[in-house]
Every structure is written in C-alpha cells, then in structure tokens.
C-alpha cells in the first residue's frame, strides 16, 4: 500500500517544478523564428567565435580571433575585402550576410571540452549565435560539434586534424575545412620515401588522445605501404612535459626514424628532447637517424626554435604560398596586424566566408539550407587551390602541403619551407574508409 502524502507546500513545489519543466522547450527555443533556432530578425546576425583565449593554445586562439575579426570586417564591407576578392563564388557583396550586418560574440574554450561546450551553449542560448566556429583541438571540436548538432546550430570547425571529426564523430551540422590525419599520412609518405628511402624502421611516440591515435594510425599505414616497418608505438600522456624518459628508449630500439605524433606543447617538448639526445646526429642501420612531425604549426615551430630545422611535416596552408587567394589574405592580415597569419587563422577565415557564402546561396541561415548549400560545394580562390566540400562527411578535399623546417630562416615567421604541394587526388579516400570509423552523419537539425 502506498504511503504517498502531499501537503500544500509540496504541491506548490511540485507544480512549480513541473511548470518550469513544461516551459523549458519554449525557453530553449525562445529565439527561434522562421523554423530554426536563433533565426535573425533584426538588422544584425550574430556569429559565435569559440576559441582558446586561455590555456596552452591561447596564442593560436588569438590568431584565430584576429582572422575572425578580419572576416567580419570584410563581410561588412570594411577593409580591402581580402579573399572575398579571389573567392570563386561571387555571392558575398560586402553588405553582411543576407543584408544583415555581421556581429559576433566570443567564447573561451580553454582547450577543454567541457569549457568549450559551456561557452558554445552560452553563445547559442544567451547571445543568439546562429553559427558557432572555432577550436584548436580535436577533442574540443568533436564535443562542440555534437552540441551544435543537438542544438540545431551550424558548426564550422577551426583547427582540428583528427580523422574522428569528420569520421566516426561526424555530424550533419558540422563542417571541416582543415585537413586531417589521413591526408597528412598520404601526403607525407611519398615525400619521406623519396627523402629517406623505403627501408626504414620507425618508432612512434603518440599523444594519448583521439588526434594522436588517428594520426599515428594514418602515418603508420601510409609509411608501411611504402615499405617502412614500425618497431614500436608508445602512447604518451597529454599532460607530459618532459619526454626524456620516452626518448631514451628510442636510442636502443633499432629504429632509424622517430615519428612524433604530438602537437602544441607536446611537440615542442618532445622534439626538443629528441634533438638534445642527439638522435639526429646518430647513424643507425647505416642511415642517418631522422625525425618526422606529421602536423606542423608555424606558431608551435617557433616554440621549438632551431630544433625544427630540416624536419619534415605537413600543414594545411602556409603564408608563403603564391596563389592570388593566399597573397590577398596575407596582405590583408599582415597590414592589419603586422605579421603573417598562421594556418589556424587561414582556416577559420575561410570557414567564416564559406558559411556566409552558403547562407547567401541558400537565401537563409536555416541550418538545413546551409548544409544543402555546402554539401558538394566546389570552390577556389581561398588559398588551397580547387576545393570540394564532400557531402558524405562534410570534409574539405584540397591540396596538402608537405613542409620542412627551414635551415636558414630570415625572420621569426620564416620557419618552414614548402617541399611539395601534394595534389588533392593523392589524399582523397572513400567516405567509408576503415580509418574513419563507422560514424553516422545523420540529418541536419534546424533545432525546432
């Protein structure tokens, strides 16, 4: 027999809780008009720039933010227009997006998934952002992308290189312009074969999170396809600072190549340790010992100083490219800020223009309209040559740069030299490639 009893106070409390619960869907979609979340109604449209403003990637986040602000200026008709002048699509007129002035809000991801989700949530719910973009980490990108999918908001990923972002964790509302681990492996392997031969023994040190795992898997598969063997893959904690205890065993492992699947501070510290241990001066298996860094960033290379000299890696874009789009962006960014943009700045600038252009072509900010406009979109003039936004996984396909640390840099920005522009065809793969996992893109969510 039930002993349930309800007094007056309990009834009031229960009623209040139930009322709040029933009103919640209305509160969450309070900004929704026109059949999708945060549909702009006034003379402005709000974009949410979610970048690391504190934490270890704060400098990269700062460069992304600079590029976003430049993109907003150009979209609103200020400045020299940058890559809007070279973009193959001519929908952007410098009058905002769909005639509305572009305004923005910023969030700090702190390079932490929970903090990034909280700031994205705040920008969506409090500030009415119609699109979220940014990030300098794959963990953050995957987390925020999932949030945007649930909330019915478009997510234009920033610097995220893991296969997972458009692989096993792909979402219909998410799009990535940046290249990925698979592409790095596919671009690097032939260059490494040419430079170091096909009889090499590799030792991998891998950051123990999704980006590290997918990068290691991709580079190992690509190099083994060229005849290399892999003697070990050691996972290193993301929080590690002194890599000497991971580098020391390499000395007696029989390996003649060390692949550092590390990024950011990890890359700087592991590369510094490897060079200190004299690995590059060693002769193993009658060959010079070599080091490879699959994903290079100019901002990170600066932290490693002279240790990057002669070391191969890959990058999404570099300011020294001489195509019209790159030159326009470098000029615009350089005159605004006094130094050349990083690859992180380039990709987020492109993503902002691509989103704005998709809205113009779709005639709406409705995520489903934007998704339709971006899926299968072919474009050029944004610095990477002819580029294709694949419908099946929302991954951009374009040329990939293989770079090498410059032996005689002329300035603090002149750290990498382009060794090869790997053609897009060489880095393409099917949507259901085993390395991409069994993710489900799903369908676009307008949020209502």
């Amino acid at each position, binding site marked *: 027999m039930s002993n349930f009893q309800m007094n007056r106070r309990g009834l009031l409390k229960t009623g209040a809780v139930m009322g709040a619960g029933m009103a919640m869907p209305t509160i969450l979609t309070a900004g929704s008009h026109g059949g999708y979340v945060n549909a702009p109604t006034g003379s402005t449209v709000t974009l949410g720039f979610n970048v690391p403003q504190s934490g*270890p990637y*704060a400098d990269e986040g700062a460069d992304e933010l600079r590029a976003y602000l430049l993109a907003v200026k150009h979209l609103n008709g200020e400045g020299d227009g940058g890559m809007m002048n070279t973009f193959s699509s001519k929908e952007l007129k410098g009058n905002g997006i769909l005639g509305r002035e572009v305004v923005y809000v910023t969030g700090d991801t702190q390079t932490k998934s929970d903090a990034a989700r909280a700031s994205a949530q705040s920008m969506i719910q409090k500030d009415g952002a119609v699109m979220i973009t940014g990030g300098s980490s794959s963990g953050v990108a995957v987390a925020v992308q999932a949030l945007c999918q649930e909330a019915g908001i478009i997510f234009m990923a920033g610097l995220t290189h893991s296969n997972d972002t458009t692989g096993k964790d792909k979402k219909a509302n998410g799009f990535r312009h940046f290249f990925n681990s698979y592409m790095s492996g596919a671009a690097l392997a032939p260059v490494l074969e040419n430079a170091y031969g096909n009889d090499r023994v590799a030792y991998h040190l891998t950051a123990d999170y999704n980006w590290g795992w997918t990068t290691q898997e991709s580079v190992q598969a690509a190099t083994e396809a060229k005849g290399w063997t892999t003697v070990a893959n050691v996972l290193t904690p993301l929080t590690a600072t002194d890599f*000497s205890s991971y580098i020391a065993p390499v000395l007696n492992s029989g390996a003649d190549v060390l692949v550092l699947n590390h990024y950011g501070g990890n890359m700087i510290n592991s590369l510094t340790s490897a060079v200190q*241990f004299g690995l590059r001066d060693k002769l193993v298996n009658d060959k010079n010992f070599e080091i490879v860094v699959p994903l290079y960033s100019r901002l990170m290379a600066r932290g490693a*100083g002279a240790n990057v000299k002669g070391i191969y890696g890959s990058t999404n874009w570099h300011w020294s490219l001489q195509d019209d789009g790159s030159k326009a962006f470098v000029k615009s960014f350089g005159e605004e800020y006094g130094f050349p943009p990083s690859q992180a700045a380039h990709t987020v600038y492109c993503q902002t223009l691509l989103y704005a252009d998709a809205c113009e072509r779709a005639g709406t900010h409705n995520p489903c309209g934007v998704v339709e406009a971006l899926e299968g979109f072919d474009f050029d003039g944004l610095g990477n040559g002819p580029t294709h936004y694949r419908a099946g996984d929302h991954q951009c396909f374009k040329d990939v740069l293989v770079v090498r640390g410059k032996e005689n840099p002329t300035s603090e920005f002149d750290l990498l030299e382009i060794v090869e522009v790997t053609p897009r065809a060489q880095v393409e793969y099917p949507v259901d490639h085993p390395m991409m996992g069994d993710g489900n893109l799903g369908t676009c969510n307008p949020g209502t």
Partner: protein
Amino acid sequence: MDAILLQIINGLDKGSAYALIALGLTLIFGTLGVVNFAHGALFMLGAFCAVTFSKILSISQVVIDPTRTDFLGNPLKVNTPYVEVWFGDFGTALLDWSVPLSILMAIPVMILIGIIMERGLIKHFYNRPHADQILVTFGLAIVIQEIVKAFFGANPIPQAAPDAFIGSLDLGVMVGFAENAIIYPYWRLIYFAFSALIIAGVFAFLRFTTFGMVVRAGMADRETVGLLGINIDRRFTIMFGVAAAVAGLAGVMYTPINPPNYHMGMDFLVLSFVVVVVGGMGSLPGAVLAGFLLGVLESLASMPEIKNLFGAIGLPAIDQIIIYLVAVIVLLVRPRGLLGKAGMMEE
C-alpha cells in the same frame, strides 16, 4: 641492461628537478608551516628571469636592408643586438651564455620576490588553517601565471644552452658499453650536477652556519627560540627568500631542457607535492630522497617493455600513475612518509 641504466640516469636527472622544487617547498613548510601552492609559480618565474635576461641582451638596433623584403614586400628590417654591435665577439658570447648568466639576475630577483610574497601576503595566513593557506597560495599562483602570460604570451619561448653544451656525452663507452648505447645530453648532466650542488649548498648552509643553526632550532621549537630573544620571524622570512631562489634557479637552468611557458609551474606543482608527502612533510632529506626515487621510477615506467608488462595485467598507463601508486603504497606502509617526523600536520 644499457636501456635500464640509461633510464636510471634519466630518472636521477628528472628527479633532480623534483628534488629542487620539493626542497624549497619543504623549507617553507618546515620553517613557516605554510603549504605553499605558489611554489611552482616561483619555479616558473625563475625560468622567465632567464627569458627576460635573454630579451634584455637581445635588445637590437634596427637597420633597413633595401636589398631584401619582408612578407609584405616591404624592405626588410634587420635586427642586430646592441651587445653584438658594441662588444663584437664578446657580445655574441654573452648572448650564447645568457641562460647561465641569468642566474646572476635570478638570485636577487627571486629572493626579493620571495620576501615580498612572504611579507605582503603569506604572513597574514600563518595562523590560519592549511586549507586557507592552500587556497590563497593557489590563487596567487594563478595570478602570477596570468601576469606572465600577459607579458610573454602563451607559447613556449625557446632558450638555447651555450653552444659548448649542445650535444650528448657517450657515457656507455666510459664504462665498457657499446658506442651510442648510453648517451646523455650535456645540458641535462649539467642540470643534474647543478641541482646536486644547490641541494648540498642548502644543507651546508643549514648545517654549518650560525644562521642555519638558528633556523633549524626554530624549525624544532619556534617558541623557545623566540623566548631567547632571537628574531626568528626575520630569519624565516629570509628562508622563504632562499626557498624562492632555489625554485627560481631550478627554473632558470631548466629552460634549455624544455622551452618555458607560463604554465610550467603548475605542471611541476602537483608532482612536487607528492614528492614532499612521500619524503615526509617537513623532512629536507626526505624531499630529496623522494624526488630522486620518484624520478627514477617514473623513467623506468616509461619504458615500452614495462608499459607492455603492466598493460598485460590491465594497467597500460603505468607511466602516468606510477608516482601516485607509489605515494599510496608509501603512505599506507609509512603514513609519515619515508623520512617524516612525528607531529608534522598531525595536530
């Protein structure tokens, strides 16, 4: 065998950094009874003394070179440090040796910072619970690192060792192993020797000077020493400055090993506290012993063979947990740590 020896050497080297930081922490705890979570920030400030010194030496005159262009196509601005312009090769040598030379700047700066920190903030928390001390010093650490980030940015700033110490020494050949079997970077060996020197210096200072004797007496019975008419507070303040200098010097010499960034203090802080707890709260020899012990264990646990062995029994990330695992075991077997004394934090 050679791989194990190499990891032991590496562990001693890593442990020397832990020991130096833990030594400073223990000095402060043993004298002032303060749990100083800002000690990692002092290590970081020492490293940025080296960065600042290098930046001062690198102040340059700018000359326009019309024959070359920058990334925008404008004539290139060429920077030449004034020390090179004024002193030629000697100036170049100064730049090359900027890290060791920055010790001269770091010692007074760090002592001053330590004294200001103690007099300005920490003395107000002597009689407060340890939880309050932890909160205020942790907050102070965050403030310090944000200030450093505001000035120097978030990215690491590489500091090179002098050219004479770039490269590695083949230790294996000296003791009969094959060539290249046990090689170790010169600068890391210097760091180890430097740490040993500083640790020995601190112990000698406390053991063989009158000042040190008074401090040790104060650590044992502060009240009685005070009743003898000795201003023990002033001596303890100076010890705080000494501890800050020890942490700072550890930071200065660490810069060629890993490029310093504003967060490096936090990276070491937790480990150093584990070292202090394992060594025994308030025990200076304990801190040093635990620093080296945990450094060696951490290095050995990073070997692929050890990782694979523990991976087979369900502990694949043994390198990440070994220090904490050892701490748990030590505290279970010896609750006061390896060389801890009764009474410390037991009230």
